[in-house]
């Protein structure tokens, strides 16, 4: 399929024409989108998956008498009819309280600069590459099975609203995940994994033979490692995992959509409240280059910005859509995002990070008699005040030194207590963009997570006694 094919001929004229149908509405937005994706998986000794797909469609969202109506579709015929449909379902709700922060119109077309485009790479080349990594792992002593996956997507989105914006954006991501499996002494399958991912360059997955080797060796180590003992410990979190920690433990709490109608949360999350020690700084921003949550405009046409959520330990700002900003008397931050055209945008994180601090890893280790070193993310979840996340790798810390490997390390805690308990932050920030975030029915949304090493006192670590 040619990359230059337009979603729709004369698209701007047709969108303008359709938007005229929305005279009754305070705002009407139309999004059109085309996505292509490829999925490859080798499982143990053979290719398991080679799937290709193309999806095209659109949606209309309309605010009528303070209530939202949304319509999504695959056929791009009759856009005016779709606008009418969105207005008609909004009217079924009667009058509501939704109001929008005024929109400053933008006309922009933002192509991504791709170093090597995965869509230009012959499938055979990718198959050979992934097959080779898979064989490296499978040949490794003690490995009983493997899963080697590659996937890429590319999408183009067009956004237009009644307020006069017309914005074209595109995005791609190529990701590889290598997983090796070995039985533990009870015959249960333990695994180790690692990944490579890029928003701008297919070649990020080249030359990963050493990574495949490391994953296989680690699977054997994990299978023979003792389980962590449950308890309350000091925990040092590595830079890859710090990003997931701050995403789960704090990021979701900064999303204003659960605050703007909830007076109890507004009381707790008053800007200016102390969240942590003065070394703690937390940011979110789609302006961070080339990460999962990078874009120039959000899905309401608001320009991206860098938002300082926590500054010197004090709650400084939160993430907004046009509606939540208007309701709280604050300003939109460019965080209204939809995973695709089948969903209305909601307030989401983009690239979230704990900012670098004054300490070093050695300083963090020095006075720990017994603690846990947690490395790379293995999922996480939050219910706002309470959060949990898993570590892909865990080690014990004994008398200031990183010691033997432990398995099944998961951490849980109360957000407010845990942020207060961060007593050291290092200066070695790393960014990671392999992860996807889930909220409501929209998952996985590409996000970036960043951070340096952090040390958290009195962490609850799950595990058998």
């Amino acid at each position, binding site marked *: 399929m040619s990359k230059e094919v337009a979603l729709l001929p004369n698209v701007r004229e047709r969108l303008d024409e359709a938007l005229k149908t929305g005279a009754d509405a305070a705002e009407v937005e139309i999004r059109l989108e085309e996505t292509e994706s490829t999925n490859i998986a080798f499982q*143990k000794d053979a*290719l398991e998956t*080679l799937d290709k797909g193309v999806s095209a469609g659109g949606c209309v969202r309309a605010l009528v008498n303070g209530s939202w109506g949304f*319509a*999504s579709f695959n056929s791009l015929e009759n856009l005016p009819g779709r606008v009418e449909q969105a207005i008609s379902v909004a009217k079924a709700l009667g009058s509501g309280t939704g109001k929008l922060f005024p929109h400053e119109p933008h006309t922009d077309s933002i192509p991504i600069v791709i170093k090597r485009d995965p869509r230009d790479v012959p499938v055979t080349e990718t198959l050979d590459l992934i097959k080779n990594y898979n064989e490296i792992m499978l040949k490794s002593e003690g490995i009983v099975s493997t899963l080697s996956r590659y996937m890429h997507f590319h999408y183009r989105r067009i956004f237009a609203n009644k307020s006069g914006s017309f914005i074209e954006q595109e995005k791609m991501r190529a990701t590889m995940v290598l997983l090796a499996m070995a039985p533990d002494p009870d015959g249960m399958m333990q695994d180790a994994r690692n990944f490579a991912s890029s928003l701008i360059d297919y070649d990020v997955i080249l030359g990963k033979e050493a990574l495949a080797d490391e994953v296989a060796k680690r699977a054997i180590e994990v299978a023979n490692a003792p389980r962590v003992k449950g*308890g*309350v410990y000091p925990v040092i979190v590595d830079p890859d995992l710090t990003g997931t920690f701050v995403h789960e433990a704090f990021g979701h709490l900064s999303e204003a959509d659960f605050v703007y109608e909830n007076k109890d949360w507004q*009381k707790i999350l008053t800007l200016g409240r102390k969240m942590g020690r003065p070394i703690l700084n937390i940011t979110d921003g789609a302006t961070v280059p080339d990460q999962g949550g990078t874009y120039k405009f959000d899905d309401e046409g608001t320009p991206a910005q860098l938002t300082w959520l926590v500054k010197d330990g004090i709650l400084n700002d939160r993430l907004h859509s046009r509606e939540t900003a208007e309701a709280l008397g604050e300003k939109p931050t460019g965080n209204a995002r939809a995973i695709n055209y089948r969903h209305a945008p909601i307030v989401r994180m983009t690239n979230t990070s704990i900012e670098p601090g004054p300490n070093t890893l050695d300083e963090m280790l020095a006075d720990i008699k017994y603690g846990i070193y947690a490395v790379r993310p293995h999922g996480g979840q939050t219910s706002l005040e309470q959060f949990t996340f898993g570590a892909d790798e865990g080690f014990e810390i004994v008398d200031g030194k990183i010691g033997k490997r432990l398995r099944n390390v*998961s951490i849980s805690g109360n957000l407010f207590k845990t942020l207060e308990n961060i007593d050291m932050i290092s200066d070695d920030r790393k960014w990671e963009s392999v992860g996807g975030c889930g909220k409501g029915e929209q998952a996985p949304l590409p996000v970036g997570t960043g951070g340096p090493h952090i040390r958290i006192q009195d962490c609850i670590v799950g595990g058998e006694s």
Partner: protein
Amino acid sequence: MTLIDEILNKAKADSDAAEVFQTSSETTSCAWSADKLKLAEAKESSGIALRVLIDGKVGFFATSKIDDPDFIVKTACDLAPLGSEFAGELPAEFKPADVDSFDEDTAKVDAGKLVTVGNDMVGKARDANSDAIYDAKLDRSVITAEIANSNGARATFEKTIFYGYLYGSITREGDVLGIYEFDHSGAFSSQPDEWVDLTVRKLKDASNVVTIPAGEYPCILTPKALDILGPLQSALNARMVLKDMSPYKDKVGEQVFDPRINIDDDGLYGNMPGTQPVDDEGITSQVTPLIEKGVLKGFIHDLHTASKMGVEPTGNGMRAGLSANPRAGYSTLVFRPGDKTLEELIAGIEKGVLVDQIMGAHQASPFSGDFSVSVNLGYVIENGKIIGRFKDGMLAGNVFRMLKDQVLEIGSELKYTGVLAPPILLDKMTVATGG
């Protein structure tokens, strides 16, 4: 000529066999946030997936753009020489099972009806407990699917799906309590009333906060807390067995679990979201025994795995979305109930816990069964009664060991939460707490 016929005809010329799956869906939903009705949605979705077989290999392409049959056929046929092995044969005839997968009344539900029912639900919940703030969603879909292959088999079916939840939360400095009740079903009936009753009762049970020292306790896991069963679902899937990713590869006929445990995949269970007359490859839906009295009976299969392992397919060739090839997946995994009600299970516990909501099931290992999850809603039981809610706890163990060595009782009330299961009372579950 229909689009399906056109694609099949073109594909036949360039392949050994071909199969087309065409689906369309129509969804209406309404959402409430902080007691207020916020959003109504009308969604339409359609697309087509083509699978071709050339020299025993699969070429697959799926798209929502149905205006270019030649492109669809060419893309799939070009991929086939590079594709994965397919050991089965596409059947020459489909024999749909007689199942309840389409509910006329649910199909007729419109946005107006959802608004009425949902406003009534949120209103009742507020009347019963106005300290809490409520979010809710009601969502109903009608799905039609047609599957046809070049050996002449063809079937069409319609499904209705209802999904909805009520979430009640009470937010205080230092204590945020959130309780959700939800249903995912083939039919929309009285679920909202049930959610109101349960949510209001649970908000009351949870109002008293107590502490419990870390330790091993008898523990009731409710169906909502059974997200941790993922590794079991993986272990009983033939795709995993074939790749040595299941610990049960050579264990058919062996006692793997407590003798009170009976598990099957029930493709015929009425009004379940996974129920349809044939699977996504056209194979007749059926009940497949997996664990009987703790003994491993077999696995779920698609056409390819059944052929590879020399057994009959089980009607579990499922598509995880239009753009995915059919692979063995569950219709409804049923954990067969015992005879004690939840109330009786609680009454029999001297000192223990009841866990109703967990977080972090997906951060556990997907294969080993080891888990370490955060308890999002857990209660302390003393002398047969719930005395209050405990906070900041974690629950750890191993799913396989738990079902083998730690089962005390199986409850009687089934609830679908991704699997259809009753509450389970387990012995010596490890609870870590900050206290």
